[in-house]
């Protein structure tokens, strides 16, 4: 591994270790842990929020049951979907369209609307060539904020289900949504956007600027178009909110999105900070730091080990090239490793670190071409997504998934202490089990179902790079990304076809709502239960042993489901060399 890549990883862990705890405690205070009457920051934010509540007719004091919470979320998502869909279709006649982009096709608009509403930010299109500035700002960037906030609200509601005993309500969706945006995402995104601008990320409303390239004669290109646009404002929230949809097609490999080493580092921090901080907030809300520490350790262990796999295999280079006698070693003027699809200024290890962060969090922004990874280097991000995006997962939904896995781990192994299973004093019974099963079956069903259908389609096969193990990996990766709301791609494949835009749109909807609704229902079921007091006979959930158990359950459940597919894809590809 290159020293700079390694250094970046260490610095990232340190930076997160320093900032995440206080950010987490702040989050807990935003969601009213401890105080119900007045919160820190009310003086600044409450007047704005009150006005919003009045406009939308929300009674902030009225709490909702899980079903009301879920219906509010669905209604909100539907309205957002329609708004983004119509905006794309109409963008040709709307203002802020300096490059004269026409309306997007129905399938394409459907896919993109679903993609941004579900916090996936899968992009079948290239941003600078398809979307007007208005669509990017009012449609996509707004969704970056609200879809992230909705995910965080859901996680908080599920936590309330665990924390509260004998009630029936989980909070108010509109209040949680509003507070998340006003008190967390907007301030953080504003700060990050300014920091990115300082590094050279652009922020303007210009169209393309035509310049004469220096090597124009040599390349036969008389003119090059340099795109403009409100980039920093979108990039900041795309990283913070596990969104990942780039302003440009090249995403964070584009110099206007990710110009410097510091910008790269800030982006990595932003990708991981909120998902991890929510776990700290969870610890505050349940009143046990140790509980949070176990989940953090589980997330960190999976994230770091899978990141290391990609970093090491990319730095190790391409075995086929090595056979040809190509030197892929690192030297004073060579970063070494597998450089296909990577920016030389980033290098293989930095790309591997980013790949781990972006697939571990359902973020999906990329700073290199994942399709060009070595077999193992590509296997790790794929596995990261197939684990269900829980290490640490997207903002909110990652923690939500981890809690579902914790409940499952408690249920499978909890019996072994001689009590019926309970998690933080709440019994896990048939009602929860049904919902957990729904939760864990939905994502694999969408992923494997569509991938299996796709590989048999001649049109899909024709679009693959090669019709062998790597082709299967491409299909698997793309559906893993959609069904887990990640958004990154093995992007050789043209996914702008009707088949892809439609099936991936459905996969994204399943991956979002077929997980969120059962999870909210679990919260609704748990919130009614009395808390069993902790005794020496209670299954301990704040120990390293339980952490190991969760890792085991996460890996075995996902492993057993996806092992055959992975064996035929990346594993065959790796051993075929």
């Amino acid at each position, binding site marked *: 591994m290159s020293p700079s890549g390694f250094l970046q990883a260490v610095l990232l862990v340190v930076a997160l270790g320093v900032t995440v705890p206080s950010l987490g405690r702040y989050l807990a205070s935003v969601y009213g842990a401890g105080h119900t009457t007045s919160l820190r920051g009310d003086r600044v934010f409450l007047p704005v929020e009150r006005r919003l509540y009045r406009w939308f007719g929300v009674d902030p004091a009225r709490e909702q049951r899980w079903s009301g919470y879920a219906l509010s979320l669905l209604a909100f998502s539907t309205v957002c979907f329609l708004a983004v869909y119509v905006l794309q279709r109409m963008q040709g006649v709307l203002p802020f369209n300096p490059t004269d982009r026409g309306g997007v096709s129905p399938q394409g608009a459907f896919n993109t609307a679903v993609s941004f509403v579900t916090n996936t930010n899968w992009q079948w299109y290239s941003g600078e060539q398809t979307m007007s500035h208005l669509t990017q700002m009012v449609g996509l960037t707004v969704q970056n904020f609200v879809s992230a906030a909705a995910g965080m609200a859901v996680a908080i509601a599920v936590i309330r289900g665990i924390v509260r*005993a004998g009630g029936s309500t989980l909070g108010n969706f509109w209040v949680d949504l509003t507070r998340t945006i006003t008190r967390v995402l907007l301030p953080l995104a504003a700060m990050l956007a300014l920091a990115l601008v300082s590094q050279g990320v652009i922020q303007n409303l210009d169209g393309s600027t035509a310049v004469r390239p220096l090597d124009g004669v040599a390349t036969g290109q008389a003119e090059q178009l340099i795109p403009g646009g409100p980039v920093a404002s979108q990039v900041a929230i795309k990283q913070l909110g596990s969104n990942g949809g780039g302003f440009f097609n090249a995403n964070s490999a584009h110099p206007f999105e990710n110009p410097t080493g510091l910008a790269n580092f800030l982006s990595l921090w932003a990708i991981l900070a909120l998902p991890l901080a929510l776990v700290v907030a969870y610890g505050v809300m349940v009143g046990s730091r140790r509980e949070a520490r176990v989940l953090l350790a589980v997330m960190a262990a999976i994230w770091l080990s899978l990141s290391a796999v990609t970093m090491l295999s990319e730095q190790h280079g391409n075995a086929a090239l090595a056979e040809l006698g190509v030197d892929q070693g690192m030297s004073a003027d060579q970063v070494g490793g597998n450089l296909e699809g990577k920016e030389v200024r980033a290098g293989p290890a930095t790309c591997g670190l980013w790949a781990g962060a972006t697939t571990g969090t359902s973020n999906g922004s990329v700073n290199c071409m994942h399709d060009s990874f070595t077999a193992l280097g590509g296997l790790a991000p794929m596995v990261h997504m197939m684990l269900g995006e829980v290490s640490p997962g997207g903002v909110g939904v990652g923690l939500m998934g981890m809690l579902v896995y914790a409940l*499952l781990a408690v*249920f*499978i*192994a909890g*019996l*072994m*202490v*001689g*009590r*019926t*299973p309970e998690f933080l*004093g709440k019994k896990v*019974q*048939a009602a*929860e*089990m049904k919902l*957990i*099963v729904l939760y*864990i*079956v939905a994502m*694999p*069903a969408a992923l494997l*179902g569509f991938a*299996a259908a796709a*590989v*048999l389609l001649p049109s899909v096969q024709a679009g693959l790079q090669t*019709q*062998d*193990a790597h*082709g*299967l990996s491409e299909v698997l990766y793309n559906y893993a990304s959609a069904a887990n709301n990640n958004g990154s791609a093995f992007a050789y494949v043209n996914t702008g076809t009707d088949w892809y835009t439609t099936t991936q749109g459905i996969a994204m909807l399943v991956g979002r709502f077929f997980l969120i609704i059962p999870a909210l229902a679990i919260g609704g079921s748990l919130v009614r239960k*009395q808390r*069993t*007091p902790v*005794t*020496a*006979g*209670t*299954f*301990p959930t704040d*120990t390293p*042993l339980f952490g190991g158990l969760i890792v*085991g359950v996460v890996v*075995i*459940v996902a*492993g*057993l*489901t*996806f*092992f*055959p*597919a992975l*064996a*035929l894809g990346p*594993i*065959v*590809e*790796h*051993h075929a060399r």
Partner: protein
Amino acid sequence: MSTAIPERPPRARTRPAATRTVIDPAVAGAALRESIRKLHPHAMMRNPVMFIVEIGSVLTTCFLLRDVATADAASNAFNAAVSAWLWFTVIFANFAEAMAEGRGRAQADTLRATRADTMARVRLPDGTEVTRPSAALDVGDHCVVSAGEIIPGDGDVVEGIATVDESAITGESAPVVRESGGDRSAVTGGTRVLSDQIVVQITARPGESFLDRMIALVEGAGRQKTPNEVALSILLTGLTIMFLLAVVTLQPFAIYFGAEQEMVVLVALLVCLIPTTIGGLLSAIGIAGMDRLVQRNVLALSGRAVEAAGDVSTLLLDKTGTITFGSRQAAEFIPVHGVTVEELAEVAMLSSLADETPEGRSIVALAIERFGLVPPDRPDAVMVPFTAQTRMSGMDFPADRHGPERRVRKGAGDSARRWALEAGGSVPLELGPIVDSVSSDGATPLVVIDDTRILGVVRLKDTVKPGMTERFEQLRAMGIRTVMITGDNPLTAAAIAREAGVDDYLAEATPEDKMALIRREQAGGNLVAMTGDGTNDAPALAQADVGVAMNTGTQAAKEAGNMVDLDSNPTKLIEIVEIGKQLLITRGALTTFSIANDVAKYFAIIPAMFSGVLPALEALDVMQLGSARSAIVSAVVFNALIIVALIPLALRGVTFRPDGAAAVLRRNLLVYGLGGLIAPFVGIKLIDVLVVAIGVH
């Protein structure tokens, strides 16, 4: 009606569990037949996991038959082997359930023999008697039962008193007394009156009697799945769906590589992956758990209660008879000033010579033990019994050659004082403080008087049964709080509680107090277990999560509780909790084992499936199995055999050691989690070696 005393049925149930082999050959034979009968789809549908295996067996058999003419010998042998072993998998699972049920069936037959052909003498309101078969009795009928006759149905004695042999139900051969009124009025149908005559008012319809319920219970018939079992079944079904998904989508991926799989292979993979081990043993574990209770003479009237027993976090134990022997025993002689302790001991002994109460006998025993005193042979002495008026007892010794007439007494402090003063004696100053200090320790002071002279005090103390302190220690380690319930005053209660090592006590407890305590504990999220026998215990028994009624108790108590202890031994509550925990641990251990097993099966089957087409996958063949077919057959065989191998564990239950949850978890995860991961690698490899040896390629 027959007055001949029927042969007492052989006692099947009362042998201690340890002496019974887990697999009884006679039971096994019947179970084997039963497991074939259970193949009926209607019966299989109750267990989704095994139902899928049965469908798989039918499918592979169909493919075998379809291809038998066209395929080569090796293919036919492979198809036949897979089909056969899939059928074995189903049959083995059925066998486990049938074994568990079979163990109860023998006992049920014995009980049924008791119930069979009883005739009842019904006394009509006008006083005349008619004879009617017991099956035709109605609730409210009055039946006359004389010595030697079988009581025709459950009911209460409304007239008379009799000794009753209840061994058919309890296995206990000593007869018990049943009389009208009070807490000993309940009689059970099928038991036999040994002496005297009683009139029984029938309280249970024929077919719904205690005996009927008992038969149904030990047979496991009409068994309802318990809540946790339901939840676990949901998980197993969910996992089955996931694996179905993984296997069904594998075929398109295989076709993509031009390696379309035979259906037999896909079915084999599916069956190996779905949790057949726990799916096949789940109901057997539940039935065996109930059976373990029956072994200890406890009838759980619902499986839910057995499960709740594992969850109990508060145990209410009656002091008397459960924690202590219930009789006060002499612990110490405390003389007043100027009296030697030997003199006090001797007089105390004299006063108790003819006293047959446990207290009296313990005084004599203590005097002999401490001071080597010899009780004098004085047949002429006259015993003065205890009365509620005098509150004293003692002996009058007429004058003889050893000395003059002598009256010795022992009794409560104030009575003794009065006696001494009336007899012209005096009360030593320090008597008051001694009496008070003994009382404040929770013990009972008995003042000893020799004619007019007060000699001192015998300290009587309720004795905690040996081993109880350790039991409570273990319970505490398991996270269970014990609360002692007693009618004693708070001082006495506190002293006994301290000595026994219970966590809390409820003194001067009324039934209402008990009820309030249970409600309070439950409101705090605790699950409460208690025992009771009286009618006034009934509401509390019903309220408790685990209410164990004593068989000697009233019908009301037995109706209210969810378990009945036929031995009427309240200490058994602790064992019941342990059995509940053991049941849950067994279920969890086998679930973990079953899921962990799958890892090895993937490593066996996936490389085998694509051995010809994708040589790269040979890297996954870590077991280096003989051939593709031998690998698949070995995995299927292992999958079937592991069920058989685990039947004894399912029936016997995982070894339970009382310990904290963290320690228990660590141990079981190591054995069943890690063991479950490793065992199939070894097992499949061994079977593969055998399979290759007999020539499967």
